[in-house]
């Protein structure tokens, strides 16, 4: 589980060019958008694309469910984990 979260953090750092951010600095429970890490709507689209490329996950960009999946690293990890067990 921790390995998956680290993997996701590294994916986020890489696909969003967060050069000055270390994986350890991102808290699993902290919001990724606005108040927490401070990502914006373009970043959300970029993460969506990365999830599709790496894990084959396709998300509806407007659904409430997607919003919940993108809340923090733990939520993203749950999404990837559930997708793998299907």
């Amino acid at each position, binding site marked *: 589980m921790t390995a998956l979260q680290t993997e996701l953090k590294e994916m986020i750092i890489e696909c*969003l*060019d*967060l*050069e*000055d951010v270390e994986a350890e600095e991102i808290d699993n429970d902290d919001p990724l958008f606005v108040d927490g890490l*401070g*990502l*914006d709507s*373009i*970043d959300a*689209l*970029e993460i969506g*694309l990365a999830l*599709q*490329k790496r894990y084959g996950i396709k998300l509806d960009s407007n659904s409430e469910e997607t919003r919940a999946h993108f809340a923090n690293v733990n939520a993203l990890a749950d999404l990837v984990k559930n997708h793998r067990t299907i």
Partner: protein
Amino acid sequence: MAGFTLEAWTALAPSLETKEDWTKWLSENTDIAEHQLKVNLKHVPMMLRRRFNTLGKCAMGAIHQLGLEDPNIPCVFASQHGDTKLTLSLLEGIGKHEDMSPTGFSLAVHNAVSGLFSIIHHNNREITAIAAMQGLIASALFEAIGQLQVSEKVLCIVYDMPLPSLYQPFSQSSEFPYALALVLSRDNENSLSLTYQKEGEAGQHLHSNPKSELQGFLAFLLDQSDGYQCRLNGSTWALQKTVNHAG
């Protein structure tokens, strides 16, 4: 004749950061290595800083050097080709049937840098992004002078970078990334004027490529020449210091 006052200007390119650097470059015409670009963007929030590549960094760095008290003024951003390197990489991705990066797409538009600038400086004034195949600097000045009819001050950015080698046989481009930032204002002095030259009065120094255009303009800014002439849509225009007849 269109008059204006040039309140301040800066220019930034790799290894060319101060007016002394540019003066030296004009006389020695040294080659510029892109990797020597040093731009301090500490004033830009980190989450926005990552969105700037070479071209945008030059523009933001040159603007920062101006030390504007109030950056919420109308702006003109002029670039002949924009970030064609980025556009080409997106096109190559399409060619390979890859999904396009939303960030890359959003930054490949011609007003991407001015958009980021407006977010960083909370600028909600008129912003124009222009592209001109000929007379880029003059086109930018014309647009800025137009803005001066309704505003006291205008920030004018001229910025470009080399085209990717694939495109170079088809169009001229700057030999290195650079940005010029100018603040134009209107006042009673109108110390500079852009004047239409009748056919036949065209001087010897008409610029045949982006580099000589930049060199000619810098020579004028650095007081090494009396005027700056350029050709625009078949007409010749001259930028000169206004002669004070009353004096």
